[in-house]
């Protein structure tokens, strides 16, 4: 009996040691639909996808400390700033291939990483209390206008999407103007920042505020009914608005990934990135996560289209720049007493 166990143990040990064709993904994006995509990738290419998902900073720390011994091939996350910071720490290597370069607009990629899907951070308003005229030519900058005093809700300063938004404002308007903007925005807040993006939209629906700032996919999520019928009805009370249509366009952010410096399976990692940018994969992503597609020729989910599809996206501000301004952004927000 003991011999049998020994044989089984040895065999299983060797099995795991066998040169499995694989790619190791560290992901701070946790969608179930991603796992389905990875399975599809495996069935098409025979390459096994190993995933560990967790919080950004923790994963980054682990990869940095593992150093040369890290088995991580690909690092995927849902904010351009995080990718940029990781890159500036020298953790990525060249992740480009001709297929990726032709699929992804240059604004949404850099040499060492690429976007996979897009999202916009927009304004939601209550049509009962805010007219279309009030929002004529509305910009992020105008959120500081005193006419909105006590009428705006937005989530906390430690939220990465807010930090990226403020980073993009620093990039476009400079630190001094953004500092002033932040102070006035805090004065316009209807309550101390609390809750997630969805809670901001629901606060407008419940009459606690008139304007909310939140990402696009949360709205679609509520409208889809997957949050229950009450929230579906509540979402209908609120309408989306894409700011800055008159100048640079609405603030965009990305989910994306890059190949790590010491990746043991670089070729497989590139294959996976290219796969995620194919039409089928992009369609799967946008249908499940309500993000915008990165490539041409794919339409977003119906609910997202209804929000207004052909809005002007900010293609001028490079998402790669969010990272270097995020710490300054948080400093500005904290100094403005943005909770």
């Amino acid at each position, binding site marked *: 009996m003991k011999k049998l166990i020994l044989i089984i143990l040895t065999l299983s040990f060797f099995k795991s040691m066998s040169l499995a064709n694989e790619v*190791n993904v560290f992901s701070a994006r*946790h*969608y*179930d639909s991603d796992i389905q995509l990875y399975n599809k990738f495996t069935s098409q290419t025979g390459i096994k996808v*190993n*995933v*560990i*998902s*967790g*919080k*950004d*900073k*923790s*994963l980054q*720390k*682990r990869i940095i*400390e*593992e*150093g*040369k*011994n890290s*088995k991580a091939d690909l690092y995927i996350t849902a904010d351009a700033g995080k990718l940029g*910071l990781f890159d500036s720490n020298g953790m990525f290597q060249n992740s480009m291939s001709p297929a990726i370069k032709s699929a992804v607009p240059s604004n949404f990629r850099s040499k060492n990483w690429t976007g996979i899907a897009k999202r916009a951070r927009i304004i939601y308003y209550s049509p009962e209390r805010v007219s279309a005229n009030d929002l004529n030519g509305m910009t992020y900058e105008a959120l500081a206008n005193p006419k909105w005093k006590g009428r705006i809700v937005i989530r*906390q300063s*430690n939220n990465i999407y807010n*930090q990226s938004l403020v980073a993009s404002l620093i990039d476009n308007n400079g630190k001094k103007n953004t500092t002033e903007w932040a102070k006035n925005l805090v004065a316009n807040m209807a309550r*101390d*920042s*609390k*809750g*997630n*993006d*969805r*809670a901001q939209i*629901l*606060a407008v*629906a*419940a*009459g*606690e505020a008139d304007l909310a700032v939140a990402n696009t996919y*949360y709205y679609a*999520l509520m409208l889809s009914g*997957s*949050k*229950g019928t*009450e*929230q579906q*009805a*509540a979402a209908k009370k609120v309408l989306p608005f894409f700011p800055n249509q008159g100048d640079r366009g609405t603030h965009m952010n990305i989910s994306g990934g890059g190949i790590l410096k010491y990746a043991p399976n670089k070729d497989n990692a590139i294959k996976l990135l290219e796969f995620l940018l194919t039409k089928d994969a992009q369609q799967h992503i946008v249908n499940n996560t309500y993000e915008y597609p990165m490539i041409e020729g794919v339409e977003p989910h119906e609910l997202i289209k209804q929000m207004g599809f052909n809005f002007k996206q900010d293609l001028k501000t490079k998402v790669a720049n969010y990272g270097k301004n*995020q*710490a300054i952004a*948080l*400093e500005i927000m*904290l*100094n403005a*007493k943005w*909770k």
Partner: protein
Amino acid sequence: MVNKINIWYFSSFIISIIVAVPIITVFSSFFETTGGYVSVLKNTFLLDYIYNSLILLTGVLTLTFIIGVGCAYLVSFYKFPGVNFFKWALILSFAVPAYIYAYSLTAFFENYGTAFSILKNLFGDGNYNAHIPKFDGMLGAIISISFSLFGYVYVLTRASFHYQSQNLLELGKNLGFSKQKSFFKIILPSARPAIVAGLSLVAMETLSDFGSVSFFGVSTLTTGIYNAWISFDDLTLANRLSSYLLIFILGLFILENLSRKKAQYHTSSKGGFKSKSVIQLFNYKSILACLFCVVVFFLSFLFPVFQMLYWTIIFPKHLLDLNLIELFSNTMLLVFLSCCVLILLAFISNYGNRVSKSKFLEMLNTFSISGYAIPGIILAVAFITFISWLDLNMINYLGTESIKSIFIGSILGLVLIYFIRFYSLANNGIKSGYLKINYSIDESAYLLGYSKFKTFRNIHLPYLKNSVLLIGILLTIEIIKELPITLIMRPFNFETFATKAYIYASQDLLEAAAAPSLLLILIASCFILITSRYILKD
């Protein structure tokens, strides 16, 4: 003196050193330079953070004391309808992690949340949102943390009350004390080590909590620690703030130790141990007692379970999508390995301390609380940093291969960190069991020719059986619930119920998080139920 430096002393010493690794790494931040975030922090929210931490701590300690000691008192000394049920049912609150309680509380009371749905179904359309109380912010945080942690105070106090001899109570009666006076002058003080042990655990878990407070948007010192690391990339400052947190907690411990002075808490051998008789309650008193327990049980257990159940029933897809067998076996593997390691090493360490009576070892042991007091993620990061440093030095000076992959991203590494994190629980639990055994019993055994090991096996173990079971259950539940360390250190493709629940909750898919949360609670509850008979044997 030479015979004091024996194997027991040495083992205890080694164990304490391992557990001290994160505290050493964290304190080494004082030798490094920090970035500019310090001044930002000082100018903006540092005082707020400290103030909030203190308010949170005070609120939670008060609430857990009232609920924990109150329930323990009622079920230990009185008989009223349902008392036998509540004895073990109140422990079920352990099965609900604070973060799941936070999700439930938020989901129930938020705009268009569960409360809104219930009201709408009962009374039709209406503007309920404005009238539904929002238990968010500090109040929500205090409530969530208190209800998920009061179990520590309850269980430890109850165990202490259990051992309280009838002699003590009769003493009170002979002195003419009323029931109230007996409670405050005799019963409560004699249970002091247990109550303090419970409150200490609560205090540490409260201060190091990040999941619940961030969910409620409450900014405590831990928020500052996280901001420092996550947003400002200043790990040195994060470690330094953690050090301040630790110093504060150590200070509390020292204060408590000093105030206890040399009071002994073991039962006197004279007169024997008389099991106490319970007092039957009548009329309004019995209803009040029952009501108190019902309310606590409902709020601490039934409420979060119902919320999770509600979601799982409305959205069954999330339950069906889970790979139950895999999640279960992963979780149980970690539990089994960690419990074995922790209990074994806690025994060795405690016995080592007892045998060598070394004040130095006692002091070293106090540092083990750092496992609890340091926020989980900082602990994990300190461990990773240490392994990295060790690895570098071993490669450079000993020419060995890299050891990193043995400890990072492996089950072994995970169990090791669990050991560091929960060592204090195992150690103190067994220590308070040992406090009840008078050292003169050991001496008698040695006189009879028993070896140290035989004394341990034949005399201590039977005495400590209950303590070991208790500790085992507490550890099992803690490991099932553990989140931040597991998230960062686990191997590829390895999920537990806790990590799965977190992954969904972090995408704001609380309805999907409900299924793994519910299963987590159910499994933890099963463990509690199986052994409750042994823990609470009267």
